[in-house]
């Protein structure tokens, strides 16, 4: 991975101008930094494409290629290179994004002909899904395209789902369109409750979802929170992202969101695309976002993925990352502040220590003094701490802990 200055340019980018423009956000709209630690907070760079725009982009791709063919030229299109070598940490935007290198997809090439044909088949399918207003999973799409290419061709259009998965990502990158906009759904994961209202247009019916009336189970975040979804009334002070469902249930039972006037979300581990988009949208409403995770490798990973984006989805960075997010804990420093936690640490595993070392080497982490101290503490004590430990003395202490941290601004970047 590379560190990239904003002005970064590569030769490849110069040689291969883009066929499809990137709808990058306007940087002048950055609001002020709330945490005061130098992390700028980009405003939503996500434009809601809407069906029309998505369809337009699909059709434009088709038209460009068809025109080339009619002119007798080899059809080809290019897209940002998705390999790790082209993933950069954008210091200005504070998240992982795809770099400037681009690659070409050509039909008249032995190595690429099939993939090219498959990509266009997916594009055509996506166009149909949108036109018919029907959604399916990426597995559903795979089955729609799993048919033989012809009587005399002993080959299927797709024979493995892994083939189509990869090409869906290609198409997302090439058109700057999320798969959700192609009416492709992903598994739902993540639960929300609290002071937000969402208007959901689904299957021809409009429903108003009230986050304060979700009882014990909360509202399950759908895979797509953009199309047919609208945040209509967000009357909260902040968003709290709780790693574990158990802790979320604790806070829900304690009526934490009502008392605090906030929204609580649990991604139930690693955050799904839908959950990340929902957090991003709430952040776009001007709400601070706080993370509450275990103090271990997995917890840190969940936090940093939501905050700066992941390598795999770096091409979606600008739509998913939440650089303005802050970290509450738990932290090893908490042991100093809360004596009872001292006895509740557990031994750190090899993976936790390795991850801590790795994080110390990431430039976007090593520049934060508090993270360096925290990680060094873990490496030194070889201990870790789970959020569940906060319940060790008193179940409702969890809420007190969070409230105190936010109240005192005892946060990590």
């Amino acid at each position, binding site marked *: 991975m590379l560190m990239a200055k904003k002005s970064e340019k590569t030769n490849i980018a110069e040689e291969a*101008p883009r066929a*499809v423009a990137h709808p990058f956000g306007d940087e002048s709209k950055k609001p002020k930094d709330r945490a005061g630690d130098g992390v700028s907070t980009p405003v939503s760079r996500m434009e809601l494409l809407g069906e029309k725009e998505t369809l337009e982009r699909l059709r434009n791709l*088709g038209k460009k290629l*068809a025109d080339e*063919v009619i002119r*007798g030229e080899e059809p080809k299109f290019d897209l940002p290179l998705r390999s790790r070598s082209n993933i950069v940490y954008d210091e200005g935007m504070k998240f992982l994004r795809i770099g400037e290198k681009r690659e070409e997809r050509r039909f008249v090439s032995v190595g690429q002909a099939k993939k090219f044909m498959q990509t266009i088949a997916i*594009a*055509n399918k996506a166009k149909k899904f949108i036109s018919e207003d029907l959604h399916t999973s990426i597995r559903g799409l795979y089955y729609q395209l799993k048919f033989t290419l012809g009587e005399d061709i002993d080959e299927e*259009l797709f024979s493995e789902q892994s083939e189509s998965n990869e090409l869906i990502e290609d198409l997302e990158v090439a058109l700057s369109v999320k798969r959700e906009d192609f009416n492709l759904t992903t598994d739902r994961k993540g639960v929300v409750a609290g002071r937000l209202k969402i208007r959901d247009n689904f299957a021809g019916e409009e429903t108003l979802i009230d986050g304060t009336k979700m009882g014990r189970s909360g509202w399950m975040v759908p895979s797509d929170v953009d199309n047919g979804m609208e945040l209509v009334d967000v009357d909260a002070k902040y968003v709290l992202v709780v790693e574990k469902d158990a802790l979320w249930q604790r806070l829900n039972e304690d009526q934490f969101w009502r008392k605090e006037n906030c929204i609580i979300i649990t991604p139930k581990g690693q955050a799904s695309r839908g959950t990340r988009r929902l957090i991003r949208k709430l952040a776009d409403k001007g709400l601070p976002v706080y993370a509450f995770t275990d103090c271990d490798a997995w917890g840190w990973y969940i936090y940093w993925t939501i905050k700066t984006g992941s390598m795999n989805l770096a091409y979606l960075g600008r739509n998913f990352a939440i650089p303005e997010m802050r970290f509450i804990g738990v932290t090893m420093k908490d042991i100093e502040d809360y004596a009872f936690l001292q006895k509740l640490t557990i031994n750190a595993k090899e993976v936790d220590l390795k991850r801590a070392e790795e994080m110390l080497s990431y430039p976007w982490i090593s520049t934060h003094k508090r993270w360096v101290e925290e990680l060094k503490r873990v490496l030194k004590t070889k201990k870790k701490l789970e959020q569940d430990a906060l319940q060790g003395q008193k179940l409702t202490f969890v809420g007190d802990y969070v409230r105190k941290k936010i109240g005192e601004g005892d946060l990590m970047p």
Partner: protein
Amino acid sequence: MGDVFDKFKEYSVAEFFKKNRQMLGFSGKVRSLTTIVHEYITNSLDSCEEHGILPDIRVEIKELENGNLRTKVQDNGTGIPEKLIGKALGQMLAGTKFARYAQQRGQQGIGATGCTMYALLTTGKPIYVESRYKEAIVKCNLAIDFKSNSPVITNLVKEPNADGTGLVIEAEFSDVKYDSGAYGVYEYLRRTALANPHAQITLVEPGGNSVTFPRSDERIPPKPRDVLPHPLGITTHDLIDFSKRVNEGTLNQFLQDSFSRVSANKVSDIRALAPEINFGRKPKDLSWEEADKLVKVFKQVKWIAPATDSVVPIGKEQIEKAVKNILVPEFMAVTERSPKVFRGGIPFLVEAAIAYGGNSGHEKTEGGRAGDIMRFANRVPLLFDAGGCGITEAVKNIDWKRYGIKDFDNSAITVFINFTSVHVPYTGAGKQAISTDEEIMDEIRNAVQEAARLMQRYVGSVVREREREGKKKAVFRYIEQLSKDLGELSGTKSEELGKKLVEIVERKYANESNGENGNGEEKKEKLEEPEVPEE
């Protein structure tokens, strides 16, 4: 190997045979059967050629109920006159070959009589002979009286012969096995057919399956000229062998009469170098040690080289026809080279052919084909002892990648080498491998490389063409589906897109074959102007 012929005196023929059967090619069940067929076939081919007859040979092998194999070899040679049948097939060292010194197939001398013996030793049964010689057909059973080394003929029947001439020998063997692999009779005959395009050979296998290797050339090879052996080309064993046949005169005279380029002057030179040998003695009293000394001395004397016209190759055209006929290759290259000499003066000639594709190479058990090296000495296939053979070594040492063969062992390729000489420098008594002398290896390598260069040109162009066709096909197969989807996506007629795409792909790969270069696809990419963005 010691002095075989001295031992002859000490043991009965049968005992000698039992003790030395591996020396005569009877080692292992598969090899024994191949040896038997080799001995009969060689006799048949020699007999036909001698008399200007195009050989038509049929080999039939049957499995009997008792597990024994019965062979029947039939030819259209001259047949054997009644009074010589016993001598030819039932007496050791009575073959006609010892009387002559010329480029020959068999140099064993034990030949067909050895087979008779092997039949008797393994089954106790005499062989059956049917000889059509001139106007008579003679049918008889034949055994050997081992003690006296003389033939025993029984059940002799004589009939007038109205058909053609020829010989049929039937014999039953135990301790043999039919195998269709690389060392078996089938492979032996296939290779024999390759090196003898004038012969037609039919094999009926034990299961009843019949295979014919058809004649591909009508020309009978010219008779090799009888030449006296050159002193440089003989071994101690040869010298003893020749000397035992001469009852008269002195050693001095024997040397001058029996060898080429040996004059009285040369004998004086030899005498000077071997003063301990009495050159006035009878030749047949020559001891092994003395003969050994003489052979060594021969090498120190300066000789006039032997005549090279004693060497009769198969011929370029003949090899081409045979290879085409039997291997049906996509391509072949055959060399035509002049004779060379080794060991200071023994003429030899190497013919090399390379066949590529078709039935070249041999089928691997796991599928695909493997490269083959077919070795021949005076047209006789050498199936065994490949490892220590100069031919194998020379071929293996060639860097085949240089000639466009990426992986020799996994290619449909046959390298055919025929080593022709009056004196084939075999490395062992089995006569299945030839020497690794530098001069021989060099010439074999040169011959094979010459053929390889010819082949390379072809393989290169064929492979390129095939790759190009393959590329085109690989792209073609997706045109229909792409046209359909692209048509729907863009609102363009799919048929039109399909037609255009076919044109585009055709043009692209046609350009590539006009050979800007092999990697044109990748290189061209960089040369194209970048597209102007659409938006």
